[in-house]
């Protein structure tokens, strides 16, 4: 292909060939449980603008989205910053494995209404971040029922769909829509290649929507965040190699599982329990036993100790809007197996300091 094919103006919402390739990839990643229609895809320079564009499309300034907490910190920026839209957390608890309860959802919605806030939708991440939970079918049905009843949207960020491990199966919102007679016009899925394919540098995000008006609007808004053409071309080639993709996903999942189990085991030996999870690049650690005061201050003191003394950078639950203090997200994918004893050793040292103090 000559430079003029790549360097010149391309459709702002992405090349059709790449949409076709990504539709195929998404289906492959989800073990062919569902197929995706390339014509319902808008490509963006990363999942970050994908979420911001949906926020701009589905809500006016001052409106709100409900989001189960804890949720990943950057969601605040993506949904709220330039849009003027609010996030209202739906608190999830360790007693429920940090899974979303419909009671909490209902209560949060009603509280928002009482405060005079107009709720435009619910945003979930599945697998969730920072906990790593998978949403089961029943919960997804309940969410769809709720969204239909309240006439609001449902956005599912499925960017980690291929980064699962363990025994539970991932179920996409697209699969639920397929099987039942739900009102599709309120369902939107966010995806990207930053996690499952480990290519965050290339900036590839996906908005997959069943609503043709949202599709039309998002296509126009994609002009502010289009994917660089050379990267589109590279990925068209790469994703077309389904044998390679299959091998990659298989290896990726195996290595993820190995690392996850090794970390969970190692932390357990230090007396630190992790919430059971089936996806993501992290362990969700319960370090509440080590914090001096059972509040955000105590948590941040521990975080600082881990960073400055242990030289281990983990994400404190408070920055994820977790209502229970003492939880931390530890990402393990940038490390190798050789690093595990080093990490454990450092955490042990900090843990001993904390225990000796009390």
């Amino acid at each position, binding site marked *: 292909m000559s430079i003029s094919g790549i360097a010149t103006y391309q459709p702002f919402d992405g090349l059709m060939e790449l949409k076709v390739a990504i539709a195929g990839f998404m289906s492959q990643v989800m073990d062919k449980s569902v197929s995706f229609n390339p014509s319902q895809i808008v490509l963006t320079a990363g999942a970050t603008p994908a979420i911001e564009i949906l926020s701009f499309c589905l809500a006016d300034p001052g409106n709100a989205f409900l989001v189960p907490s804890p949720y990943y910190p950057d969601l605040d*920026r993506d949904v709220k910053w330039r849009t003027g839209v609010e996030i209202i957390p739906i608190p999830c608890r360790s007693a429920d494995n940090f899974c979303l309860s419909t009671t909490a959802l209902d209560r949060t919605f009603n509280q928002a209404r009482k405060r005079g806030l107009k709720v435009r939708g619910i945003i979930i991440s599945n697998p969730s971040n920072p906990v790593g939970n998978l949403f089961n079918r029943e919960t997804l049905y309940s969410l769809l029922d709720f969204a239909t009843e309240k006439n609001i949207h449902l956005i599912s960020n499925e960017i980690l769909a291929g980064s699962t491990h363990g025994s539970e199966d991932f179920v996409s919102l697209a699969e639920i829509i397929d099987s039942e007679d739900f009102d599709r016009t309120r369902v939107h899925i966010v995806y990207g290649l930053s996690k499952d394919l480990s290519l*965050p540098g290339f900036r590839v995000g996906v908005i997959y929507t069943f609503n043709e008006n949202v599709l039309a609007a998002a296509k126009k808004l994609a002009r502010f965040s289009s994917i660089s053409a050379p990267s589109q071309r590279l990925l068209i080639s790469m994703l077309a190699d389904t044998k390679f993709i299959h091998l990659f996903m298989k290896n990726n999942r195996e290595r993820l599982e190995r690392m996850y189990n090794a970390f969970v085991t190692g932390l357990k030996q230090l007396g630190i329990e992790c919430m059971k999870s089936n996806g993501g690049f992290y362990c969700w650690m319960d370090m509440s036993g080590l914090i001096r005061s059972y509040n955000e201050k105590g948590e941040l003191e521990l975080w600082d100790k881990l960073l400055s003394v242990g030289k281990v950078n983990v994400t404190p639950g408070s920055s994820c809007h977790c209502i229970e203090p003492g939880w931390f997200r530890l990402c393990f994918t940038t490390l190798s197996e050789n690093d595990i004893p080093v990490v454990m050793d450092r955490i042990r040292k900090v843990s001993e300091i904390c225990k000796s103090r009390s």
Partner: protein
Amino acid sequence: MEFENPSCQLLSKIATNEQHGENSPYFDGWKAYDNDPYHPTQNPNGVIQMGLAENPLSFDLVEEWIRKHPSASICTSEGLQKFRDIAIFQDYHGLTEFRNAVARFLGKVRGGRVTFDPARIVLAGGATGASELITFCLADPGDAFLVPTPYYPAFDRDLKWRTGVQLIPVICESSNNFKITKEALEEAFENAKKSSIKVKGVIIANPSNPLGTTVERETQITLVNFINEKQIHLVCDEIYSATIFSRPNFSSIAEIIEEVECNRDLIHIIYSLSKDMGFPGFRVGIVYSYNDAVVNCGRKMSSFGLVSSQTQHFLASMLSDDEFIDHFLKTSSMRLAKRHQTFTSGLEEVEIKCLNSNAGLFCWMDLRPLLKEPTFEAEMVLWRLIIHNVKLNVSPGFSFHCVEPGWFRVCFANMDDETLEIALKRIRIFIQATEKKSDVTAKKRKQW
């Protein structure tokens, strides 16, 4: 146009308003081209695209460079060792070597008369993303920017749509070659004040789109004094800075502020490689600000339109190849000069004048003599004639907010030599037929 479809009520105002501008009649020309695109053999009677400011004239040089530098790509065996690091790099500061190369390139384009600090370079999703980003940083919903007319139509969408910011035109007229005057700036500012609209800054394009002229030093000094006095921002879109093909030379705002006293916190430059290098597909947008707070805030917004690390890596290599860049800039300029000369002299043969220009990928064509009457209705009639009968997609002045009817922007760089000849031929035939018609009409009148 109100959407009554209930499912549209589920959407936001931004998603359902007309601010995207795609329902404007200006797009009819594009639609005509999309439905009937010219091809030398497959569709020789199709519409020739003269509304797209693209610059493929020097792609052969780029291709040769790519062939000679396989390590610039992370997909070749020579460049593969960098794949891992590049693929995971998503820092919104951008690759250091890329920022360094861009800073170097910016200085080169300005003849080395001024240097740029890589730490002030903020990445964005093309110039489209860069324009929106700087607007988000400088203004709140309801605030306004002053923009000299005629101006690039997409400013209406890029600067206003999601930001909620307004644009107030600063009227420029052909009587002084559309120069930006202090009087016009003051008038626009006062009008805003009367309507209780807060003006946050002025935005100019230098070189200008659609005029194709560089903004004179004196005018820029006037602008700097104006914004300093009012304590408002000056945003300079210098996206066409390397498309200068004849005198006068280009003066960047970066040079002006070295000579004139100015609060540098008010000065910002928008840039991109879409025009100078011909790489719109790469989506390389740059905001260069002399204001630290803007750089810090803008940088965080880069996440909404970061340049692909693969592209950054490739360009870091290409833009720091001094010998190649010098040769490219010189050759590109020469080829643009030749194109401009061919086109304007072809138009002169049928007595069509263009504004004297020295830059850009287009001419600002004066078709006022062809208007039945000096109105925008007449301009629209003429434009539709050109689209559907002459089969050229040109851009009418009203879409650029020009206050005088009869001006058209015509792009001349986005096609090969043969196609340009055919476009000129069609124009000649049209003009000659129009003259014949008016001769006949005049004769008929005489008979009466």
